[in-house]
């Protein structure tokens, strides 16, 4: 942008702001209206809130124990099948455990892994992106070099090896997946920071002698935050998918913990005669991941400053 262009842009922006104050609704009201008319956001949000509630109140929703085996009750089909029973809505697995109960408790694992991995990756990636984007030059080269190294490594393979070495506890899985998904945070945060750092309010902060740390955390980070939330939702969805895949391969969450991927893995032995054992947990992952992706896209549309509709 040349100085003339910028001048013109700012003048039109400020006159728009005057008109805005007079007649336009507040940004918060605009966001609320956009949120309530965005089908993807509403669907994603509803599924997400429902899943979180189910995960939290799991013990109240079912009278069964997710670990209790009952070999007299093996492989009962779901209630809609001819031999189904109302005692086990989704039937039982090969150890006679109530499938619905395991599905409900499995939501906890998926959510913990998703939130945990996205949080770790978000902290690593955002820090690198902010620093690289703000300082530029050599610092930026180092950051981009780290991203290039990360991108070149086969993530799933490394995750499998690390989990094989450190064991398949939830903590290890969350930590390993956190190390797997930070690159997109860097790329986005960095490019947004590069655009923001030439703004007048940043120059003003520099002129009054604010420290770099204060400018990055106080001026730039708040403006990057909505981008970070969008990436976090995408990476949360990826982490849930990869956890399921790792657990399915037997190198993620260890039995008897009810992880959805592990349930598919255990159901695989029976999949020719009891396909519901594979279909149900997979469908649960699918729906949760779609919901998270839609929620993320929704947040992006709703918080977009220029108003995409």
């Amino acid at each position, binding site marked *: 942008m040349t100085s003339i262009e910028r001048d013109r842009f700012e003048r039109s922006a400020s006159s728009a702001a005057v008109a805005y104050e007079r007649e336009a609704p507040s940004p918060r009201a605009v966001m609320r209206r956009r949120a309530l008319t965005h089908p993807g956001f509403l669907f994603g949000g509803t599924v997400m809130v429902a899943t979180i509630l189910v995960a939290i109140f799991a013990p109240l929703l079912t009278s069964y124990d997710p670990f209790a085996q009952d070999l007299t009750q093996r492989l009962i089909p779901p209630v809609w099948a001819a031999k189904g029973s109302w005692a086990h809505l989704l039937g039982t697995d090969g150890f006679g455990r109530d499938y619905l109960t395991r599905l409900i408790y499995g939501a906890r694992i998926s959510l913990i892994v998703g939130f945990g991995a996205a949080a770790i990756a978000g902290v690593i990636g955002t820090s690198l992106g902010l620093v690289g984007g703000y300082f530029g030059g050599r610092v930026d080269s180092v950051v981009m*070099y780290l991203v*290039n*190294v990360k*991108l*070149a*490594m*086969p*993530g*799933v*393979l*490394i995750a*499998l*090896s*690390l989990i*094989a*070495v450190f064991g398949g506890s939830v903590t290890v899985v969350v930590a390993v997946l956190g190390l797997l998904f930070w690159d997109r945070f860097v790329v986005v945060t960095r490019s947004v920071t590069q655009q923001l750092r030439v703004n007048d309010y940043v120059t003003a902060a520099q002129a009054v002698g604010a420290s770099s740390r204060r400018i990055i955390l106080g001026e730039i980070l708040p403006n990057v935050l909505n981008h970070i939330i969008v990436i976090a939702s995408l990476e949360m*969805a990826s982490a849930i*998918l990869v956890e*399921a*895949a790792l657990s*399915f*391969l*037997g*190198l993620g969450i260890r039995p008897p913990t009810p992880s959805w*991927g592990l349930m*598919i893995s255990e159901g*695989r032995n029976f*999949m*020719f005669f009891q*396909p519901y054992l*594979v*279909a149900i947990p*997979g469908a649960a*992952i*699918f729906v949760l*991941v*779609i919901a998270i*992706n*839609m929620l993320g896209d929704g947040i992006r549309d709703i918080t977009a400053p220029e108003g995409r509709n």
Partner: protein
Amino acid sequence: MMRFLIHRASIAVLVALTVSIIGFALLRLSGDLAAALAGDTAKPEQIAQVAHLYGLDRPLYIQYLDWAGKALHGDLGRSLFDNKPVSQLIAERVGVTAQLSFMSLVYALVIAIPLGVLAATKPNSWIDRASLGLAVFGQAVPNFWFGLILIIVFGVTLRWLPISGSDHFSNFILPTITLGTSVIPAIMRVTRTGMLDALDSDYIRMARAKGLSTVSVLFKHALRNAILPVVSLTAVSLGFLLGGSVIVESVFALNGIGFLAFQSILRTDFPVVQSIVVFVSFAYIVLTLLSDVVNAYLDPRIRIG
């Protein structure tokens, strides 16, 4: 152009070097290699003897240089499991993985590019919505589960296709669909965005004003410019497919390097795992370097700027 190439290649070399160090460290993370080599019943003296024999009592950086030097000459060590040279194990299986990745990529491009173009020419039409639906599906479906569902439907219920093995072309159809579907969304979205930008430009308006046919405008003029980011994405996708094949190969018991890596992890055969990690990384680095060169060749703005 020369400067761009040298700059890009030196970054690639630096990244490759770092990846090889991380790959080497991965092997050491797995614990005491000498103890693993000597076996469960070995006495401490025997372990020390093995360590000396394999040079494991030397400083780490010398061990790394030794390993890297041999790796450069194609000697990747021996498998702890069956004592075969790792390079031989990889060479035997890399064809299967390459075939699977390549077929998946072709499948994804053949579906994603036309759909992306059509979606861009008719925004908000049913085809735009349908391709968006496909993108949502491809992004959210767990691919190992999708593979199992395909096995149940096409392998067991309909009995159209074999469900495991890697001898025949038909063995690759279900794995290709499983693996390829996961890269469709990104390719489709990038094609669509690129086409939307291109169709909005002056040279397309000019081409239309000249009275060129729609096909010529779309495919000769617009797609040519829209395809640039797709080229880079294709290289990245191919790298992703090589690494992602570990899951799909395991589901379908395809005997490629992904399945080999998975089996080697299970039997803690870390020289093999380490070599495959480094091998796949190098393939990715070379592919992205090539795509940058192709892009620079196609787009003068990159090689000058």
